[in-house]
Protein backbone atom coordinates (compact mmCIF):
# COMPACT_ATOMS: atom_id res chain seq x y z
CA UNK A 1 0.00 0.00 0.00
CA UNK A 2 2.85 2.34 0.91
CA UNK A 3 4.57 1.54 -2.38
CA UNK A 4 1.51 2.24 -4.44
CA UNK A 5 0.83 5.40 -2.43
CA UNK A 6 4.38 6.53 -3.05
CA UNK A 7 4.03 5.84 -6.77
CA UNK A 8 0.97 7.97 -6.84
CA UNK A 9 2.88 10.72 -5.04
CA UNK A 10 0.96 10.42 -1.80
CA UNK A 11 2.58 10.31 1.61
CA UNK A 12 1.31 8.12 4.41
CA UNK A 13 0.63 10.32 7.38
CA UNK A 14 -0.97 7.89 9.77
CA UNK A 15 -0.85 4.19 10.66
CA UNK A 16 -3.60 2.98 12.91
CA UNK A 17 -4.02 -0.34 14.69
CA UNK A 18 -7.33 -1.04 16.34
CA UNK A 19 -8.27 -3.92 18.54
CA UNK A 20 -11.25 -5.95 17.48
CA UNK A 21 -11.08 -8.26 20.46
CA UNK A 22 -14.52 -7.18 21.56
CA UNK A 23 -15.85 -8.24 18.18
CA UNK A 24 -14.08 -11.60 18.45
CA UNK A 25 -15.53 -12.16 21.93
CA UNK A 26 -18.94 -11.19 20.62
CA UNK A 27 -18.52 -13.62 17.72
CA UNK A 28 -17.54 -16.41 20.12
CA UNK A 29 -20.58 -15.68 22.26
CA UNK A 30 -22.80 -15.87 19.19
CA UNK A 31 -21.18 -19.13 18.11
CA UNK A 32 -21.60 -20.54 21.59
CA UNK A 33 -25.28 -19.76 21.37
CA UNK A 34 -25.91 -20.76 17.76
CA UNK A 35 -23.76 -23.87 17.25
CA UNK A 36 -25.72 -26.03 19.73
CA UNK A 37 -28.90 -24.64 18.19
CA UNK A 38 -27.75 -25.64 14.70
CA UNK A 39 -26.66 -29.05 15.96
CA UNK A 40 -30.04 -29.52 17.61
CA UNK A 41 -31.85 -28.65 14.40
CA UNK A 42 -29.57 -30.89 12.32
CA UNK A 43 -30.33 -33.76 14.69
CA UNK A 44 -34.05 -33.14 15.02
CA UNK A 45 -35.95 -36.45 15.17
CA UNK A 46 -38.41 -35.31 12.48
CA UNK A 47 -35.49 -35.10 10.06
CA UNK A 48 -33.99 -38.46 10.94
CA UNK A 49 -36.97 -40.64 11.68
CA UNK A 50 -38.05 -41.29 8.07
CA UNK A 51 -34.46 -41.89 6.96
CA UNK A 52 -33.78 -44.21 9.89
CA UNK A 53 -37.03 -46.03 9.13
CA UNK A 54 -36.05 -46.63 5.50
CA UNK A 55 -32.53 -47.75 6.39
CA UNK A 56 -33.78 -50.12 9.10
CA UNK A 57 -36.43 -51.53 6.79
CA UNK A 58 -33.98 -52.27 3.97
CA UNK A 59 -31.38 -53.70 6.33
CA UNK A 60 -33.77 -56.01 8.16
CA UNK A 61 -35.43 -57.16 4.96
CA UNK A 62 -32.03 -57.98 3.48
CA UNK A 63 -31.31 -60.18 6.48
CA UNK A 64 -34.74 -61.69 7.03
CA UNK A 65 -35.50 -65.12 5.66
CA UNK A 66 -38.70 -65.28 3.60
CA UNK A 67 -40.69 -66.68 6.52
CA UNK A 68 -39.36 -63.91 8.78
CA UNK A 69 -40.25 -61.01 6.50
CA UNK A 70 -43.67 -60.56 8.10
CA UNK A 71 -42.00 -59.68 11.40
CA UNK A 72 -40.12 -56.74 9.91
CA UNK A 73 -43.04 -54.25 10.13
CA UNK A 74 -43.63 -55.25 13.75
CA UNK A 75 -40.05 -54.51 14.71
CA UNK A 76 -40.07 -51.34 12.61
CA UNK A 77 -43.17 -50.15 14.42
CA UNK A 78 -41.13 -49.96 17.63
CA UNK A 79 -38.76 -47.41 16.07
CA UNK A 80 -38.45 -44.35 18.25
CA UNK A 81 -36.64 -41.19 17.22
CA UNK A 82 -36.52 -38.70 20.07
CA UNK A 83 -34.41 -35.80 21.26
CA UNK A 84 -31.50 -36.93 23.40
CA UNK A 85 -31.21 -33.97 25.76
CA UNK A 86 -29.99 -31.34 25.42
CA UNK A 87 -29.36 -31.28 21.65
CA UNK A 88 -28.82 -34.90 20.63
CA UNK A 89 -30.73 -37.61 18.86
CA UNK A 90 -31.77 -41.01 20.14
CA UNK A 91 -32.84 -43.75 17.75
CA UNK A 92 -34.08 -47.04 19.07
CA UNK A 93 -35.59 -50.26 17.88
CA UNK A 94 -36.53 -53.25 19.98
CA UNK A 95 -38.32 -56.57 20.13
CA UNK A 96 -42.06 -56.06 19.87
CA UNK A 97 -42.73 -58.70 22.51
CA UNK A 98 -45.04 -61.70 22.41
CA UNK A 99 -48.06 -59.49 23.06
CA UNK A 100 -47.15 -57.19 20.16
CA UNK A 101 -50.75 -57.03 19.10
CA UNK A 102 -51.63 -55.29 22.33
CA UNK A 103 -48.51 -53.20 22.68
CA UNK A 104 -48.31 -51.86 19.18
CA UNK A 105 -51.19 -49.49 19.50
CA UNK A 106 -50.91 -46.07 18.02
CA UNK A 107 -49.62 -44.12 21.01
CA UNK A 108 -52.22 -41.72 22.36
CA UNK A 109 -49.71 -38.92 22.71
CA UNK A 110 -49.18 -38.95 18.96
CA UNK A 111 -52.77 -38.34 18.17
CA UNK A 112 -54.36 -35.47 20.02
CA UNK A 113 -57.73 -35.89 21.63
CA UNK A 114 -60.11 -35.32 18.73
CA UNK A 115 -60.14 -38.87 17.39
CA UNK A 116 -61.64 -40.12 20.65
CA UNK A 117 -64.45 -37.61 20.74
CA UNK A 118 -65.81 -36.34 17.44
CA UNK A 119 -64.66 -39.36 15.47
CA UNK A 120 -67.33 -41.44 17.17
CA UNK A 121 -66.95 -45.07 18.00
CA UNK A 122 -64.95 -45.83 14.84
CA UNK A 123 -62.13 -43.48 15.85
CA UNK A 124 -60.97 -45.56 18.80
CA UNK A 125 -61.51 -48.68 16.68
CA UNK A 126 -59.14 -47.46 14.02
CA UNK A 127 -56.49 -46.05 16.31
CA UNK A 128 -56.58 -49.11 18.56
CA UNK A 129 -55.26 -51.29 15.77
CA UNK A 130 -51.74 -52.59 15.73
CA UNK A 131 -49.72 -50.30 13.49
CA UNK A 132 -49.19 -52.82 10.66
CA UNK A 133 -52.93 -53.43 10.48
CA UNK A 134 -53.56 -49.71 10.64
CA UNK A 135 -51.30 -49.26 7.62
CA UNK A 136 -53.08 -52.07 5.83
CA UNK A 137 -56.40 -50.38 6.57
CA UNK A 138 -55.15 -47.13 5.04
CA UNK A 139 -54.02 -49.03 1.95
CA UNK A 140 -57.49 -50.55 1.60
CA UNK A 141 -59.01 -47.08 1.85
CA UNK A 142 -56.66 -45.79 -0.85
CA UNK A 143 -57.48 -48.77 -3.07
CA UNK A 144 -61.23 -48.21 -2.74
CA UNK A 145 -62.74 -46.18 -5.62
CA UNK A 146 -63.66 -42.62 -4.65
CA UNK A 147 -67.35 -43.18 -5.37
CA UNK A 148 -67.33 -45.95 -2.75
CA UNK A 149 -65.81 -43.71 -0.11
CA UNK A 150 -62.15 -44.24 -1.04
CA UNK A 151 -59.50 -41.56 -1.18
CA UNK A 152 -60.08 -38.63 -3.50
CA UNK A 153 -57.07 -38.40 -5.79
CA UNK A 154 -55.44 -35.04 -6.30
CA UNK A 155 -52.42 -33.71 -8.15
CA UNK A 156 -50.08 -34.87 -5.39
CA UNK A 157 -51.16 -38.45 -5.98
CA UNK A 158 -50.38 -38.36 -9.70
CA UNK A 159 -47.87 -40.98 -10.80
CA UNK A 160 -47.82 -42.59 -7.35
CA UNK A 161 -48.77 -46.18 -6.68
CA UNK A 162 -51.51 -47.03 -4.18
CA UNK A 163 -48.82 -48.32 -1.83
CA UNK A 164 -46.88 -45.05 -2.02
CA UNK A 165 -49.99 -42.97 -1.40
CA UNK A 166 -51.04 -45.22 1.49
CA UNK A 167 -47.59 -45.10 3.00
CA UNK A 168 -47.63 -41.30 2.90
CA UNK A 169 -51.14 -41.08 4.36
CA UNK A 170 -50.27 -43.55 7.13
CA UNK A 171 -47.18 -41.51 8.00
CA UNK A 172 -49.29 -38.37 8.14
CA UNK A 173 -51.84 -40.10 10.34
CA UNK A 174 -49.20 -41.33 12.75
CA UNK A 175 -46.84 -38.39 12.81
CA UNK A 176 -46.79 -36.23 15.93
CA UNK A 177 -45.72 -33.00 14.25
CA UNK A 178 -48.19 -30.15 13.95
CA UNK A 179 -48.34 -29.95 10.18
CA UNK A 180 -49.18 -33.64 9.97
CA UNK A 181 -51.76 -33.31 12.72
CA UNK A 182 -53.55 -30.62 10.74
CA UNK A 183 -53.54 -32.87 7.67
CA UNK A 184 -54.80 -35.75 9.81
CA UNK A 185 -57.75 -33.69 11.03
CA UNK A 186 -58.73 -33.13 7.40
CA UNK A 187 -58.27 -36.77 6.39
CA UNK A 188 -59.87 -38.38 9.41
CA UNK A 189 -63.56 -37.75 8.59
CA UNK A 190 -63.13 -39.28 5.13
CA UNK A 191 -61.39 -42.39 6.40
CA UNK A 192 -63.84 -42.82 9.25
CA UNK A 193 -66.77 -42.38 6.87
CA UNK A 194 -65.40 -45.17 4.70
CA UNK A 195 -64.61 -47.32 7.71
CA UNK A 196 -68.13 -46.91 9.07
CA UNK A 197 -69.57 -47.90 5.72
CA UNK A 198 -67.32 -50.96 5.64
CA UNK A 199 -68.27 -51.81 9.19
CA UNK A 200 -71.98 -51.64 8.43
CA UNK A 201 -71.53 -53.71 5.30
CA UNK A 202 -69.58 -56.44 7.07
CA UNK A 203 -71.30 -56.14 10.45
CA UNK A 204 -68.16 -55.27 12.41
CA UNK A 205 -68.31 -54.40 16.05
CA UNK A 206 -66.19 -51.31 16.57
CA UNK A 207 -65.75 -52.15 20.24
CA UNK A 208 -63.61 -55.23 19.54
CA UNK A 209 -61.15 -54.63 16.75
CA UNK A 210 -59.21 -57.80 17.56
CA UNK A 211 -62.12 -59.94 16.51
CA UNK A 212 -61.85 -58.66 12.97
CA UNK A 213 -58.21 -59.50 12.35
CA UNK A 214 -58.16 -61.37 9.08
CA UNK A 215 -61.84 -60.81 8.44
CA UNK A 216 -61.28 -58.02 5.98
CA UNK A 217 -58.00 -59.38 4.77
CA UNK A 218 -56.06 -57.34 7.31
CA UNK A 219 -52.67 -58.63 8.13
CA UNK A 220 -52.67 -61.19 10.84
CA UNK A 221 -49.11 -60.56 11.74
CA UNK A 222 -49.31 -61.05 15.42
CA UNK A 223 -50.26 -64.67 15.67
CA UNK A 224 -48.14 -67.54 14.54
CA UNK A 225 -44.43 -68.08 14.89
CA UNK A 226 -42.52 -65.75 17.08
CA UNK A 227 -39.40 -64.14 15.73
CA UNK A 228 -36.34 -66.03 16.88
CA UNK A 229 -34.13 -64.18 19.33
CA UNK A 230 -31.11 -64.99 17.17
CA UNK A 231 -32.66 -63.39 14.10
CA UNK A 232 -33.70 -60.27 15.98
CA UNK A 233 -30.25 -60.02 17.52
CA UNK A 234 -28.79 -60.17 14.04
CA UNK A 235 -31.18 -57.56 12.66
CA UNK A 236 -30.65 -55.11 15.49
CA UNK A 237 -26.88 -55.31 15.23
CA UNK A 238 -26.98 -54.73 11.50
CA UNK A 239 -29.40 -51.82 11.86
CA UNK A 240 -27.16 -50.29 14.51
CA UNK A 241 -24.23 -50.49 12.10
CA UNK A 242 -26.35 -49.01 9.31
CA UNK A 243 -27.62 -46.17 11.49
CA UNK A 244 -24.08 -45.39 12.53
CA UNK A 245 -23.09 -44.96 8.89
CA UNK A 246 -26.26 -42.99 8.22
CA UNK A 247 -25.60 -40.48 11.01
CA UNK A 248 -21.89 -40.16 10.27
CA UNK A 249 -22.62 -39.42 6.64
CA UNK A 250 -25.69 -37.29 7.14
CA UNK A 251 -24.98 -35.14 10.17
CA UNK A 252 -22.19 -32.94 8.83
CA UNK A 253 -24.01 -31.65 5.72
CA UNK A 254 -27.19 -31.05 7.70
CA UNK A 255 -25.24 -29.22 10.39
CA UNK A 256 -23.50 -27.11 7.77
CA UNK A 257 -26.86 -26.31 6.19
CA UNK A 258 -28.29 -25.20 9.54
CA UNK A 259 -25.26 -23.00 10.21
CA UNK A 260 -25.64 -21.41 6.78
CA UNK A 261 -29.25 -20.55 7.62
CA UNK A 262 -27.93 -18.66 10.65
CA UNK A 263 -25.15 -16.97 8.72
CA UNK A 264 -26.57 -13.48 9.16
CA UNK A 265 -26.77 -13.89 12.92
CA UNK A 266 -23.21 -15.22 13.33
Amino acid at each position, binding site marked *: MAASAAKEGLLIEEVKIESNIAGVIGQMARLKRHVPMAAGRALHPDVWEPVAHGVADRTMR*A*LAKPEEQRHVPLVLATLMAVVFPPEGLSLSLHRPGPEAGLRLRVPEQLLGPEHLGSAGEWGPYMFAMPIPEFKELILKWVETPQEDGGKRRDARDAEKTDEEIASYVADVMLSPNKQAQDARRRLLPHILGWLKKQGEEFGWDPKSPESHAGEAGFLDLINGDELKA*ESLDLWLR*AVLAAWR*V*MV*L*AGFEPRFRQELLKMQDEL
Partner: protein
Amino acid sequence: MDAEGSALALWQEYLAGYFDGGAHLVGRASVVFPKATLRFQEASLPQPLKGLGISVVWVTQVRVERRWEVLTAAELALLPAGTPAEQERMQAHCSFLFLVRAVDPPSPGSSPLRQGSGGQAGAASNAQQQVQVAAGKLFGLLQNTAATEPLSEKGISKIRPTPARMAFPGDGAPGADQGYRLRVLSCRAILRWAVASQ
Protein backbone atom coordinates in the same frame (compact mmCIF):
# COMPACT_ATOMS: atom_id res chain seq x y z
CA MET B 1 -32.01 -41.89 -13.96
CA ASP B 2 -32.54 -43.73 -10.67
CA ALA B 3 -29.35 -43.06 -8.72
CA GLU B 4 -30.03 -45.76 -6.16
CA GLY B 5 -30.81 -48.41 -8.77
CA SER B 6 -27.90 -47.50 -10.99
CA ALA B 7 -25.45 -47.50 -8.07
CA LEU B 8 -26.59 -50.95 -7.01
CA ALA B 9 -26.37 -52.20 -10.60
CA LEU B 10 -22.78 -50.99 -10.71
CA TRP B 11 -22.00 -52.75 -7.46
CA GLN B 12 -23.55 -55.93 -8.81
CA GLU B 13 -21.47 -55.84 -11.96
CA TYR B 14 -18.32 -55.03 -10.03
CA LEU B 15 -18.68 -57.53 -7.18
CA ALA B 16 -19.81 -60.33 -9.51
CA GLY B 17 -16.53 -59.88 -11.34
CA TYR B 18 -14.56 -60.68 -8.20
CA PHE B 19 -16.61 -62.93 -5.95
CA ASP B 20 -16.76 -65.82 -8.41
CA GLY B 21 -14.39 -68.29 -6.80
CA GLY B 22 -11.49 -67.35 -9.06
CA ALA B 23 -8.21 -65.46 -8.77
CA HIS B 24 -8.17 -61.76 -9.66
CA LEU B 25 -5.59 -59.04 -9.69
CA VAL B 26 -5.92 -56.51 -6.89
CA GLY B 27 -3.27 -53.94 -7.65
CA ARG B 28 -0.31 -56.18 -8.53
CA ALA B 29 -1.28 -59.14 -6.37
CA SER B 30 -3.34 -62.08 -7.50
CA VAL B 31 -6.01 -62.80 -4.92
CA VAL B 32 -8.38 -65.75 -4.84
CA PHE B 33 -11.88 -64.54 -4.03
CA PRO B 34 -14.58 -66.83 -2.67
CA LYS B 35 -17.75 -67.42 -4.64
CA ALA B 36 -20.66 -65.48 -3.19
CA THR B 37 -24.35 -65.10 -3.87
CA LEU B 38 -25.06 -61.38 -4.30
CA ARG B 39 -28.27 -59.63 -3.35
CA PHE B 40 -29.21 -55.97 -3.32
CA GLN B 41 -31.41 -53.85 -1.10
CA GLU B 42 -34.12 -55.83 0.66
CA ALA B 43 -33.85 -58.92 -1.57
CA SER B 44 -33.45 -62.01 0.60
CA LEU B 45 -30.65 -64.46 0.04
CA PRO B 46 -31.82 -67.88 -1.13
CA GLN B 47 -32.66 -70.19 1.75
CA PRO B 48 -31.15 -72.33 2.98
CA LEU B 49 -28.06 -70.29 2.30
CA LYS B 50 -25.32 -72.42 0.83
CA GLY B 51 -21.86 -70.96 1.12
CA LEU B 52 -21.34 -67.24 1.22
CA GLY B 53 -23.84 -64.43 0.65
CA ILE B 54 -23.23 -60.70 0.30
CA SER B 55 -26.13 -58.25 0.50
CA VAL B 56 -25.53 -54.64 -0.48
CA VAL B 57 -27.87 -52.10 1.10
CA TRP B 58 -28.12 -48.46 0.10
CA VAL B 59 -27.99 -46.41 3.31
CA THR B 60 -28.23 -42.77 2.40
CA GLN B 61 -27.21 -39.98 0.06
CA VAL B 62 -26.32 -36.42 1.00
CA ARG B 63 -24.96 -33.30 -0.70
CA VAL B 64 -26.64 -33.89 -4.03
CA GLU B 65 -25.17 -31.44 -6.54
CA ARG B 66 -25.62 -30.73 -10.25
CA ARG B 67 -22.80 -29.52 -12.51
CA TRP B 68 -21.57 -29.50 -16.12
CA GLU B 69 -18.64 -31.82 -16.82
CA VAL B 70 -16.96 -33.83 -19.57
CA LEU B 71 -18.03 -37.46 -19.22
CA THR B 72 -15.53 -40.32 -19.09
CA ALA B 73 -15.28 -42.80 -21.97
CA ALA B 74 -16.89 -45.48 -19.78
CA GLU B 75 -19.83 -43.21 -19.02
CA LEU B 76 -20.25 -42.25 -22.65
CA ALA B 77 -20.26 -45.91 -23.64
CA LEU B 78 -23.41 -46.37 -21.54
CA LEU B 79 -25.22 -43.56 -23.38
CA PRO B 80 -26.65 -43.52 -26.93
CA ALA B 81 -24.09 -43.02 -29.70
CA GLY B 82 -23.49 -39.39 -30.59
CA THR B 83 -24.25 -38.06 -27.12
CA PRO B 84 -22.06 -34.96 -26.57
CA ALA B 85 -19.23 -35.53 -24.09
CA GLU B 86 -20.06 -32.42 -22.10
CA GLN B 87 -23.09 -33.17 -20.04
CA GLU B 88 -24.83 -32.15 -16.92
CA ARG B 89 -23.86 -34.45 -14.15
CA MET B 90 -25.29 -35.18 -10.72
CA GLN B 91 -23.10 -35.98 -7.78
CA ALA B 92 -24.02 -37.28 -4.34
CA HIS B 93 -22.16 -38.51 -1.28
CA CYS B 94 -23.54 -41.99 -0.63
CA SER B 95 -23.18 -44.71 1.96
CA PHE B 96 -23.57 -48.43 1.50
CA LEU B 97 -23.70 -51.41 3.80
CA PHE B 98 -22.27 -54.81 2.89
CA LEU B 99 -23.72 -57.70 4.87
CA VAL B 100 -21.40 -60.69 4.49
CA ARG B 101 -22.98 -63.92 5.65
CA ALA B 102 -22.49 -67.64 5.73
CA VAL B 103 -24.24 -70.50 7.50
CA ASP B 104 -22.62 -73.63 8.79
CA PRO B 105 -24.32 -76.82 7.73
CA PRO B 106 -25.83 -78.61 10.74
CA SER B 107 -23.57 -81.34 11.96
CA PRO B 108 -25.26 -84.68 12.71
CA GLY B 109 -26.64 -84.87 16.22
CA SER B 110 -25.78 -81.29 17.12
CA SER B 111 -28.34 -78.98 18.69
CA PRO B 112 -29.38 -75.92 16.69
CA LEU B 113 -27.46 -73.68 19.05
CA ARG B 114 -24.26 -75.59 18.46
CA GLN B 115 -24.55 -75.88 14.73
CA GLY B 116 -22.06 -73.14 14.07
CA SER B 117 -19.24 -74.82 15.88
CA GLY B 118 -19.74 -77.97 13.85
CA GLY B 119 -18.99 -79.90 16.99
CA GLN B 120 -15.69 -78.14 17.53
CA ALA B 121 -16.40 -75.94 20.52
CA GLY B 122 -14.10 -72.95 20.68
CA ALA B 123 -12.67 -73.38 17.21
CA ALA B 124 -13.47 -71.02 14.38
CA SER B 125 -16.14 -72.65 12.25
CA ASN B 126 -16.03 -72.87 8.51
CA ALA B 127 -18.75 -70.20 8.16
CA GLN B 128 -17.02 -67.91 10.60
CA GLN B 129 -13.82 -68.24 8.64
CA GLN B 130 -15.64 -67.70 5.36
CA VAL B 131 -17.18 -64.40 6.41
CA GLN B 132 -13.96 -63.26 8.04
CA VAL B 133 -11.96 -63.94 4.89
CA ALA B 134 -14.61 -62.56 2.53
CA ALA B 135 -15.09 -59.37 4.54
CA GLY B 136 -11.33 -58.89 4.70
CA LYS B 137 -10.93 -59.34 0.96
CA LEU B 138 -13.85 -57.05 0.24
CA PHE B 139 -12.32 -54.38 2.46
CA GLY B 140 -8.95 -54.78 0.75
CA LEU B 141 -10.55 -54.64 -2.66
CA LEU B 142 -12.48 -51.47 -1.94
CA GLN B 143 -9.39 -49.82 -0.50
CA ASN B 144 -7.33 -50.49 -3.59
CA THR B 145 -7.40 -47.52 -5.92
CA ALA B 146 -6.27 -49.49 -8.98
CA ALA B 147 -8.87 -52.19 -8.41
CA THR B 148 -11.69 -49.70 -7.97
CA GLU B 149 -10.68 -47.60 -10.98
CA PRO B 150 -13.21 -49.27 -13.33
CA LEU B 151 -15.94 -48.59 -10.79
CA SER B 152 -14.75 -45.01 -10.46
CA GLU B 153 -14.91 -44.52 -14.23
CA LYS B 154 -18.49 -45.73 -14.25
CA GLY B 155 -19.63 -43.48 -11.46
CA ILE B 156 -18.71 -44.70 -7.96
CA SER B 157 -15.53 -42.99 -6.83
CA LYS B 158 -13.64 -41.98 -3.70
CA ILE B 159 -14.65 -45.21 -2.01
CA ARG B 160 -13.87 -45.16 1.71
CA PRO B 161 -14.60 -48.53 3.30
CA THR B 162 -14.73 -49.07 7.05
CA PRO B 163 -13.43 -52.42 8.32
CA ALA B 164 -16.08 -54.89 9.39
CA ARG B 165 -16.58 -53.91 13.01
CA MET B 166 -19.30 -56.26 14.06
CA ALA B 167 -17.74 -59.51 15.12
CA PHE B 168 -20.62 -61.90 15.28
CA PRO B 169 -21.08 -63.92 17.42
CA GLY B 170 -17.60 -63.53 18.86
CA ASP B 171 -18.72 -60.42 20.71
CA GLY B 172 -20.25 -62.60 23.39
CA ALA B 173 -23.75 -61.38 22.77
CA PRO B 174 -26.28 -63.47 24.61
CA GLY B 175 -28.52 -65.46 22.34
CA ALA B 176 -26.24 -65.06 19.35
CA ASP B 177 -27.01 -67.61 16.68
CA GLN B 178 -24.07 -69.96 16.68
CA GLY B 179 -24.86 -71.21 13.21
CA TYR B 180 -25.21 -67.90 11.46
CA ARG B 181 -22.21 -65.72 10.72
CA LEU B 182 -22.33 -62.10 9.76
CA ARG B 183 -19.88 -59.30 9.17
CA VAL B 184 -21.05 -55.80 8.40
CA LEU B 185 -18.80 -53.56 6.37
CA SER B 186 -19.78 -50.06 5.40
CA CYS B 187 -18.41 -47.64 2.88
CA ARG B 188 -18.84 -44.07 1.82
CA ALA B 189 -18.38 -43.06 -1.78
CA ILE B 190 -19.19 -40.35 -4.25
CA LEU B 191 -21.77 -41.34 -6.80
CA ARG B 192 -21.79 -39.43 -10.09
CA TRP B 193 -24.19 -39.93 -12.93
CA ALA B 194 -24.88 -38.12 -16.16
CA VAL B 195 -28.20 -36.42 -16.60
CA ALA B 196 -27.70 -36.44 -20.41
CA SER B 197 -29.85 -33.38 -20.94
CA GLN B 198 -28.50 -32.63 -24.41
